[in-house]
């Protein structure tokens, strides 16, 4: 009897632990986005993106600070934060979803679909995109790109400036996940 109870305790403790151990994080993930039009090319990069995954279930989350995007021109950065993204009101963008058909025992590199809810400028939208998932020793690397439609997130671009800003923005991302340190 005693042993059985001990086993339950151990199992319970382990289930908690294993869940912890299966979670991995990247605190220096990068996201770049581009808007190409014939009038103006706009580029921005952010190397302070936080993302974590559950390497058993394939769940994934991303948290992006809008003020951490760096633009070529200082004025673009101001307009991005003040007029379009309103980073005072919506300081971060978030993604919460899962890697579809995730195989926890994978090795090497696989192309997977990721589906989830992306929240930008306070508006939620379900998105799905492809990404390369790679396992290297005890690291996971997830990278790829996706397109976002500006309209979906209620970002207002005045008609006079619409030739300067693309309707769909291309974003690429690169994350390297390591186990949470204890």
């Amino acid at each position, binding site marked *: 009897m005693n042993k059985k109870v001990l086993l339950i305790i151990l199992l319970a403790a382990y289930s908690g632990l294993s869940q912890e151990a299966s979670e991995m994080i990247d605190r220096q993930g990068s996201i770049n986005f581009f808007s190409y039009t014939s009038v103006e090319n706009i580029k921005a990069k952010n190397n302070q993106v*936080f993302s*974590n995954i559950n390497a058993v279930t394939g769940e994934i*989350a991303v948290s992006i600070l809008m003020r951490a995007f*760096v633009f*070529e*021109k*200082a004025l673009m950065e101001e307009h991005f934060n003040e007029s379009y993204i309103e980073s005072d009101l919506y300081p971060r963008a978030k993604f919460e979803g899962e890697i579809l058909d995730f195989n926890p025992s994978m090795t090497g590199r696989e192309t997977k679909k990721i589906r989830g809810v992306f929240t930008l400028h306070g508006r939620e939208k379900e998105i799905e995109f492809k990404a390369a998932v790679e396992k290297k020793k005890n690291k996971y690397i997830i990278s790829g790109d996706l397109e976002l439609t500006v309209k979906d997130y209620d970002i207002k671009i005045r008609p*006079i*400036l619409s030739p300067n800003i693309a309707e769909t923005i291309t974003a690429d991302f690169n994350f390297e996940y390591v186990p949470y340190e204890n």
Partner: protein
Amino acid sequence: MKINQLYILGVFALIFGGMQGQESLLSKLEKEQEIPSYEVLETFKGTYLSIGHSVETQKKGILEVSSMNRFWNKPIETSQSFVADKWNARVGLSYAFTDRFTFGAGYGTGYKSVDAYAKYRLFIQQNNGRKSPLSVTLLQTAVHRDKSKYDGGGPLDFSEKIAFTTQVLIARKITPNFSLQIAPTYIYRGEESLIPNESLNRYAVGFGGRYRIGGHVSVVSEYYYVFNEVDFMETYGPFSLGVNWELSDLLLQFKLTNARHFTEDKFIAKTANNFNTRDGNFHFGFHATYVIHFKKR
């Protein structure tokens, strides 16, 4: 008894273990990635609020080219001029040597005035309260006017042609759309030495505000109160009501005002007409400011 206790402990451990797993990945991230305190952007849209300077300076490596214009009519019924009788203008250049320090210079059509200013951002408001709740910018201007004596007795001495203005610009962005500025001002005008017993020093305070009504459009207003107005002529505090409209790299500022001059010492201390819509008092102002990025990051 003992077994029961152990069993309860086990159940607790299970629940606890389960709970740990239940915290979503995203909430974990958000807990860890705190939002840092940032410098507040765009307390005002331009480096000029409306008629006077704002706390804003441009970021390092930006050259500002500005054209400032005022139009007004003479208070004569018989005027045959098209659109406006009189026009006053200033063209200016300013360069941001650092994110905090800007140097500017300008040329004005009134008395061929040449002016220069240095502007330094002492404090920049942080969006996370405690660190710095206000923006404070120091402004020092100097101007030289090519003027002659009032009675036609030849040009003024150099010391009479120059004037200085020192301002401490203090502002706060109260909401994303609403900002206020207060500006204690000290003015020295050499020209006043022509008037017997007139002080060369003026003390004033400026009040300004902007309210953003759209993504790129804001309504601005400014008023200066002079504590010791000159005695030998009637002067009024300059007032302005205007709209700032930002078009990418171009800022357009439209205003209705009683001030017809561009340099601080003159329009604060020597605005000779009140604000109303009568000819001679009513001035329409139009500023266009274009920014050029010399340093790309």
